[in-house]
């Protein structure tokens, strides 16, 4: 857990800091060209495109099963039909189309696949040796130019555990939190591929990882450089945003009016994407007071904070988060590992839900991602004792439609609605119970895990021929 926070990262930083590559590119041409390249066409926004292709499936009808649709809906003894990779129908009873596989789900639950908005799989893979430690570009506090996808090792054995034990179908891989601006995130479908691009979620927007608080100030303060304090964190953040605003102004002018293109700056390009609303901010931030400051900073520079991650004290400012339309992604019961996690309470998510703020579960952990269903169950149970009764179907939003919204992919996944990707988990009991396991997991309608079929259990290249290879794990 702590490993993720700053990474076991190399003390020996080879590269000089390239983080503040903010030297002003000069625009030599005073007179704009007659026609510009066009708005949004100054450079390729998607140079490493997804090559993910859904695997083939068969028309499948799940019957007689408890359905939590991921958006708050629930059907007892209902049915779900999917075909050609898409959800076709969800209802109390559906006639089996010809040729469909029909599965009787008596006593079982069906949910949309679990979506983890905060993972480092692939960037901090197993085995966690230094040679694999690729999640934090810990050589400078401002590195919005790095992209997590360029670190993802698609053979991480962790992907299979998240699938088979956790029913995870989609996950966001974020840079670590050593840096104020950690870089771009990438959203993946949890389907092994030879390349990162083969896992990349088609059309998902990029995210920008930012971090508040103890980690950046500890990492860089420990090296005798800025930031060494929380005020240093914000000062460096503001200075960077100010440059980004200027960079955006120059590029916007060029894209609108033409002329000579300003020099490209990869760090500023990411921030321009945020200011333009194309890239979603995912901000590691624990304390209520710091989240409030960040929200005002966002207002100052004209961007929106999509989601605060870890957000241990979100419950203290549920009203503020609601007012600003910013989500909180949280754990159920992590606490006390550093000062900014000292005030964690298990009802955090439940208080957000009751107050009408946007909250969701997240893992940040290669083990935790295998049991997010149990984590939301903990929140429900703690909340119930405290007097917040949250129905199962509402709690499942925390692992489904809400993280999908946070990732900007809710139009295509995150719930069992006709037309959406058939990302589906059949649980062998109530998924809020410790005794329940995923029985089958479909991604885009393809059956990619089946508890009863040893052949439907992925083994990454790394594990082939190793001790325990192909075991149930």
């Amino acid at each position, binding site marked *: 857990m702590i490993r993720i926070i700053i990474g076991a990262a190399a003390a020996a930083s080879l590269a000089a800091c390239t983080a503040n590559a903010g030297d002003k590119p000069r625009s030599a041409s005073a007179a704009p060209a007659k026609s510009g390249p066009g708005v949004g066409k100054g450079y390729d926004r998607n140079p490493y495109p997804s090559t993910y292709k859904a695997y083939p499936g068969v028309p499948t009808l799940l019957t007689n099963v408890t359905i939590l649709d991921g958006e708050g809906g629930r059907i007892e003894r209902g049915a779900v039909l999917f075909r050609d990779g898409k959800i076709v129908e969800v209802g109390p009873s559906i006639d089996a189309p010809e040729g469909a596989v029909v599965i009787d789900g008596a006593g079982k639950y069906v949910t949309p696949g679990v979506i983890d908005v905060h993972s480092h799989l692939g960037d901090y893979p197993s085995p966690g040796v230094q040679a694999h430690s690729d999640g934090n570009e810990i050589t400078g506090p401002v590195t919005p130019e790095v992209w997590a996808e360029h670190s993802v090792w698609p053979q991480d054995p962790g992907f299979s555990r998240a699938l088979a034990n956790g029913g995870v179908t989609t996950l966001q891989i974020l840079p670590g939190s050593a840096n104020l601006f950690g870089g771009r995130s990438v959203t993946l479908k949890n389907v092994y591929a030879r390349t990162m691009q083969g896992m990349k979620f088609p059309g998902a927007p990029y995210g920008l990882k930012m971090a508040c608080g103890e980690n950046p100030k500890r990492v860089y303060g420990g090296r005798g450089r800025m930031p060494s304090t929380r005020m240093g964190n914000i000062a460096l953040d503001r200075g960077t945003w100010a440059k980004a605003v200027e960079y955006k102004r120059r590029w916007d002018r060029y894209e609108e009016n033409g002329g000579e293109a300003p020099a490209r700056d990869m760090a500023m390009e990411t921030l321009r994407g945020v200011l333009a609303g194309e890239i979603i901010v995912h901000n590691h931030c624990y304390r209520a007071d710091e989240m409030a400051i960040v929200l005002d900073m966002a207002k100052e520079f004209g961007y929106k904070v999509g989601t605060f991650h870890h957000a241990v004290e979100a419950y*203290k400012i549920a009203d503020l988060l609601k007012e600003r339309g910013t989500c909180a992604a949280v754990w159920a019961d992590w*606490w*006390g590992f*550093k000062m900014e996690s*000292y005030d964690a309470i298990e009802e955090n998510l439940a*208080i957000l839900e009751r107050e009408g703020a946007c909250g969701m579960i997240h893992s940040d952990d*290669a083990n935790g991602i295998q049991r997010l269903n149990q984590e939301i169950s903990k929140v429900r149970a703690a909340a119930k004792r405290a007097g917040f009764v949250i129905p199962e179907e509402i709690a499942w939003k925390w692992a489904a439609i809400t993280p999908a919204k946070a990732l900007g992919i809710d139009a295509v996944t995150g719930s069992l609605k006709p037309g959406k990707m058939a990302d589906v988990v059949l649980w062998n009991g109530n998924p809020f119970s410790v005794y329940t396991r995923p029985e089958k997991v479909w991604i885009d309608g393809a059956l990619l895990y089946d508890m009863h079929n040893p052949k439907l259990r992925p083994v990454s290249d790394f594990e082939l021929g190793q*001790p325990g290879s192909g075991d*149930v*794990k």
Partner: protein
Amino acid sequence: MKKLLMAAAAFGTALPAAAQTVAVTNAKLVIGDGSAPVEGGTVLVRDGRVVAAGPGVTVPAGVPVIDAEGRWVTPGIFAGFTRLGIVEVDGVSETDDSAASSSPFNAALDISPAVNPKTSAITLNRAEGVTRAVVAPEARGSIFAGQGAVIDLGADMDAVSKPRAFQFMEYGETGARRAGGSRPAAIALFRNALFEARDYARNPASFADRGKDALLTRADALALQPVVTGQVPLLVHVERASDILVMLDLKREVPALKLVLVGAEEGWTVARQIAAAKVPVLASALADLPASFEQLAATQSNIGRMQAAGVTVGIGTINDNEARQARLVKQYAGNLVALTKVPGASGLDWGQAFATISSKPAEAMGMGGEFGSLRPGRRGDIVLWDGDPLEIGTAAVRVFIDGVEQPVETRQDLLRKRYFDPKEGALPKAYER
């Protein structure tokens, strides 16, 4: 604990009623020895110890009785390997007494005086039904971490049930690093320590004068002496199968060693040998990733397979939030039950699963006669739950340690109450308490 209670009472400190004699009746009763729960059970505690537990127990007159109303009653959770009570906040080094990288001493370090019964982790874990814990120091300057303790999680100032209860040692990748860079270096260090501890035993007086040539301080040699003679168990953290076999070889060489394996994620691959050597294990429960090259064969079926092979296995939480999250062992044990429904996996039935967090870890420590179950003679550590204790969200309703009822409110509870309505009112939140 009893002693302190009386002392505290004399000073007028607010403490739970010192009812060391108590009976809980009408319970769904779990003994903790691997047997299934029984309905309509009673447990009787007198002077802090279990007198009897089962369906046919009669309560003598005058004993205070608690009617469980059919709810689950179990022994308190015995957390098999933790760092409870010696760390407040991991990220604040001043509060962390688990390791001492700059100390000239290693095996001699005794964790007992560092245990702070008021650490928030003790309060919180007590509130979740953890009543005893194995507390180990962490190795930094040597393969030897020092002498660990068994503690209770009571709300008094006397936490240490047994000081210097074991020596903790690192082998495998961590041990290699601590010894100077390799497994052979760790073995050499271990052998040398054995020699020196024996030398010390033969002639303690000579040991003081060896000056800088000594590879072991006098205090360290003294601490290792009971390890060599088997009076005190040696807990060794080891993950890889081949490393486990090396430890079993050492035990053959020094049969007096009371060896206990900690971690043992590849234990299932050599389970027969572990069982034959009668070496118990405090294993990680749900670790199923090849997190390092010494854990390639890690699987959640590890504990089930070892126990099927006849190994005594309890759950320990090494490298697993061990300073704060001992409470998670309940969830881990529940997950081992879930595995019984997965083809190809090895899980545990409910009774066995509960034993991995009660009697089994106590037995692994050689303390099964004292802790971990409701068999007669054990400490009166009892928890009354509002449901199945291995199920998510089940709460400990009442917690007894040595027969004394314990408070279960935490600062998290107070925070939740304060922010039940997050908005500020007529006065700042700081005035709500």
